[in-house]
C-alpha cells in the first residue's frame, strides 16, 4: 500500500512539474508541446542520445542511492558532493599514475574498491563524529564538502596539471571506464562501465536493506535508535557504518564520473550531481528501485534540455526549472499522501454504493 502511495506521489510530482514547465514555456511565448517534444526527443531520439541519458543517469543513480541509503538509516548525508570529489580524486590519481600500465580488467576493480574506500572514509568521519560526539551529520558533511574541494584544489594543479592550471591531464582511454564496445554500441556516446556499476549498486543496496541482518540493524537504528539500543544493537557502530556505506556509493559516483565521463578533473567545481542526488532520493521515495527510475527520468531531462534550447526559443534553464518544481512537489509529498488516501476512500465508497 505504501509503495502504491509512493508511486502515486512521484507520478503526481512529475506531472505537476511538467505542468509548471508548460506554464513557464507558455509565459515566455513558446509552444509547450514543441518544447516537451524536443526535451524528450533530446533525451531519447537516437541511440547516442539514449547513451547520454544513461551516462548522466549513472552518476545520479549512485548519488541518489547514497542519499537514499543514508535517509533509510536516519541520516541526512548532504556531503555526497565532497565524497564524490574524494572518490573521484583517488580514481583520477590512480588512472594518471598506474592506470596505463595495468590491464583494464584488473585496473577497474582496483579503482572501484579504492574510490569506495575513499568515499567511505570521508563520510565515515562524519559518522564517527556523530556517533562519538553527537555532531550533526549535516554540519559535518557540509564542512567536509569544502575540505574535499580544497584538497582537490591543491593536489590536481600540484601533481597532475596538464597545460592548464585548472585541470588535470586527460585520462587515456586504457585507464578510463570507457569501453570500446559500449562506445560503438551507443554510437560514440559517453556511456561507460559505470552504468553496470550503478545498476549493480541498486541491486546490492536493495538486497542489503530488505534481506540482510545488516539492513535490519541499520534501519532499526534509523527508525528508533532508543529501541535499537535496548535490543542490544551497537548504535554508534551502525551510524558510522551507515555513513561509510553511503559515502562508498558517493565515492563510486566520483570514480565513474571523473574516470568514465569527464576523463579529467577540474578544480574549483563542486559536482552538482552530489546535490541532485537529494532530489533523486526524494522523488524515488528512498527506495533503490525508485532511485533508479528517478535518476533515469532526470537523466532524460538533463540530456534533452540542450536540444530543446537549440530547436526552440525556450532556454535550457526551463529544464532545470522543471526539475526544481518536481523536487518541490516531491518534498511536499504529504499533500499527495492525503490526496491518495482521500481518493482511495472515495473510490472504495463509490465501489460499494
Amino acid at each position, binding site marked *: 500500500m505504501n509503495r502504491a502511495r509512493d508511486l502515486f506521489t512521484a507520478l503526481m510530482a512529475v506531472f505537476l512539474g511538467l505542468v509548471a514547465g508548460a506554464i513557464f514555456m507558455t509565459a515566455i511565448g513558446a509552444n509547450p508541446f514543441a518544447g516537451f517534444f524536443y526535451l524528450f526527443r533530446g533525451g531519447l531520439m537516437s541511440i547516442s542520445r539514449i547513451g547520454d541519458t544513461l551516462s548522466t543517469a549513472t552518476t545520479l543513480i549512485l548519488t541518489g542511492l547514497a542519499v537514499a541509503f543514508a535517509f533509510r538509516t536516519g541520516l541526512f548525508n548532504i556531503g555526497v558532493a565532497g565524497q564524490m570529489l574524494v572518490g573521484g580524486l583517488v580514481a583520477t590519481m590512480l588512472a594518471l599514475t598506474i592506470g596505463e600500465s595495468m590491464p583494464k580488467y584488473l585496473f577497474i576493480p582496483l579503482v572501484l574498491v579504492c574510490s569506495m574506500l575513499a568515499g567511505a572514509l570521508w563520510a565515515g568521519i562524519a559518522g564517527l563524529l556523530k556517533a562519538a560526539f553527537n555532531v550533526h551529520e549535516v554540519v559535518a558533511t557540509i564542512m567536509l564538502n569544502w575540505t574535499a574541494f580544497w584538497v582537490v584544489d591543491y593536489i590536481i594543479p600540484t601533481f597532475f596539471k596538464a597545460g592548464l592550471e585548472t585541470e588535470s591531464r586527460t585520462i587515456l582511454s586504457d585507464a578510463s571506464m570507457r569501453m570500446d564496445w559500449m562506445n560503438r554500441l551507443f554510437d560514440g556516446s559517453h556511456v561507460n562501465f559505470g552504468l553496470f556499476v550503478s545498476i549493480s549498486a541498486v541491486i546490492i543496496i536493495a538486497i542489503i536493506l530488505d*534481506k540482510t*541482518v545488516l539492513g*535490519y540493524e541499520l534501519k532499526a537504528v534509523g*527508525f*528508533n535508535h532508543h529501541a535499537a*539500543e*535496548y535490543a*542490544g544493537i*551497537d548504535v554508534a557502530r551502525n551510524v558510522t557504518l551507515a555513513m561509510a556505506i553511503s559515502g562508498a556509493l558517493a565515492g563510486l559516483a566520483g570514480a565513474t564520473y571523473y574516470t568514465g565521463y569527464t576523463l579529467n578533473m577540474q578544480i574549483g567545481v563542486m559536482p552538482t550531481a552530489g546535490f541532485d542526488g537529494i532530489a533523486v532520493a526524494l522523488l524515488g521515495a528512498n527506495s533503490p528501485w525508485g532511485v533508479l527510475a528517478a535518476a533515469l527520468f532526470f537523466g532524460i531531462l538533463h540530456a534533452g534540455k540542450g536540444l530543446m534550447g537549440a530547436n526552440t526559443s525556450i532556454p535550457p534553464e526551463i529544464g532545470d526549472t522543471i526539475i526544481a518544481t518536481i523536487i518541490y512537489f516531491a518534498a511536499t509529498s504529504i499533500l499527495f499522501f492525503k490526496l491518495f488516501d482521500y481518493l482511495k476512500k472515495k473510490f472504495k465508497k463509490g465501489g460499494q454504493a
Partner: protein
Amino acid sequence: MEHVVEMLNITKAFPGIVANDDISIQLRKGEILALLGENGAGKSTLMSILFGLYTPDAGTIKVFGKTVNIANPNVANALGIGMVHQHFKLVHNFTVTENIVLGMEPHVGPFLKTRDAAAKIRALSKHYGLNVDPDAKIEDVSVGMQQRVEILKMLYRDAEVLIFDEPTAVLTPQEIIELMKIMRNLIAEGKSIILITHKLKEIKEIADRCTVIRRGKVIGTVDVAGTTSAQMAEMMVGRQVNFNVDKPAKQCGDVVLEIKDLRVQSSRKTEAVKGFSLTVHGGEIVGLAGVDGNGQTELVEALTGLRHVESGSILFQGQDIAHHSIRDRIRAGMAHIPEDRQKRGLVLDYTMEENMVLEIYGLPPFAKRGFLQKPLIRAYAEKLMQDFDVRAGEGSLSLARGLSGGNQQKAIVGREVAHDPMLLIAVQPTRGLDVGSIEYIHRRLVEQRNSGKAVLLVSLELDEIMDLSDRIAVISHGELTGLKYPKETNEGEIGLMMAGVAEGAHQ
C-alpha cells in the same frame, strides 16, 4: 434533573469498525461521570466527537438543553467544554501564563501583556487549590503541575464541563490524591466532569455515576456507590475478572541477581542510585516500589546495560556483568520489559514480525550467513502473537504503530518471555492498560516466577506491587529504604518508606 451535556444515539463508523454504535450519555450538573471501557472500546472517539474533533455519522448533542453542532474544538470551547488530554499540549520553554493564554494572548498593540492574565491565573489557582506559580516555566515543573496547568487552561476559558482523559496515567500516587482533591473542588464550584478511565479504584473513589462502554456500545450506566468494582469490571470486559492472582506457595531458588552497593548517575550527572543493594532469587517476584523519579529508571538502565555504572557490582548468575554490553546481558538470559514501550520497546515503523525478533534477528534460525530468514521469522511472530493474544489488523505484517497500547504491550511481554530468561525485569508492565490486559500480563509474570525464574517488578502502582510480589523493596532518593514481605506490611508502611522514612532493612 438538569443535564449539562447530553449525547444522544451517537454513531460513528471508521473503515472496518463501528467505533460508537448508538451511544447515549448524559452528564448532570455538578457530578463526575466516569466513562469506563477497555482500550479501543470507543471512549476516546466519543469524547473527540464532543470536543469537535470528529463529526458523528448520526445522533445529536445537547449542551445545556440546546441542540448544538460542534464542528471544531473552538466551538466546544465557546460552549464551555474543555479537555485535559492524556498527553499534555504545552510549550515547554514557555511560562505557565504564556501557555494558558496561548491562542488568546492579551496584548497592547504588538506587545504581549501578561500581567493581568497572570493575576487572573493566580486567583483561579488559589480558588481551586491548584497551587500553580504563573511565572514558572513548564520545563521546570513536575508532571502533576503540568496537568494542573492544563486544568487552569480550561478554567481560564470559563469551561463548565471538563473532560479528563486518563488523567492519572502519568501521576504518582501522591499526585493522584492531589488530583482527586482538585476534582472535588471543581465539583463544589458547580463544574461538571467527565472522567475517562479504566481504573476502577479511581471510579469508586471519586465518580458519582459510571457509564460502561464495550465494543462501541453502552452496556449500562450505574450509580457508583451501589455497585462493586467487580460488577463494573464484568460489565467492561464482558466476563468475570479475577483480581487476585493465584500464586502457589513460594519455592525460592538460587540467587539469580545480586546488586551490590551500586552507584549510578542520572542524565543530569547527579547521583541517582546511591549504594543500592538487593538480591533476587529464582522463583520469586521482587517488587520495587517508589515514587517516580527516585532512581528506579537509572537502576533499571544500569541493570540492563543502557546506563553506565559508576561503582558497585551486578552479579547475574554469579558473574559480574556491570560493564558487559547490552547484547551480552540479553544473551546471558536477562529480559527487559521497558518503561516506555513506544520509545524503547518497539520500532514503531517496523512490522510486528520484525519487532518480535528485535533481539534475536541475528541468531539462527532467523539469520543464515547474514541473510534474514523471513518465512521463519513470520512463523515465529505469528505463533507468539497467537500465544500472547496480540490483536492486529494485518496480523504479523501490521506496523507496530497501528496496534493499540494494550496489544503493543502484550507483544513486548510475549517477546521477552519467549526468550525464556532467567531474569525478567518488568518496568511498569501494565501502565495505561485495560483490566483484561493487566490481568493477562500479571498472570504471565507469575507463570514466569512459578517456573523458577526471577522477576524484578518495578512499578509506581502500589496495588500491583502488593498483589504480585513475594518481597517488596522500597527505593527512595536512590537508596533502599525498606525490604518487606507483603504479608507483614501494609500500604501505609510502604508509603512511609517511599517517602524516605527508612526502616531497618531485613530479609
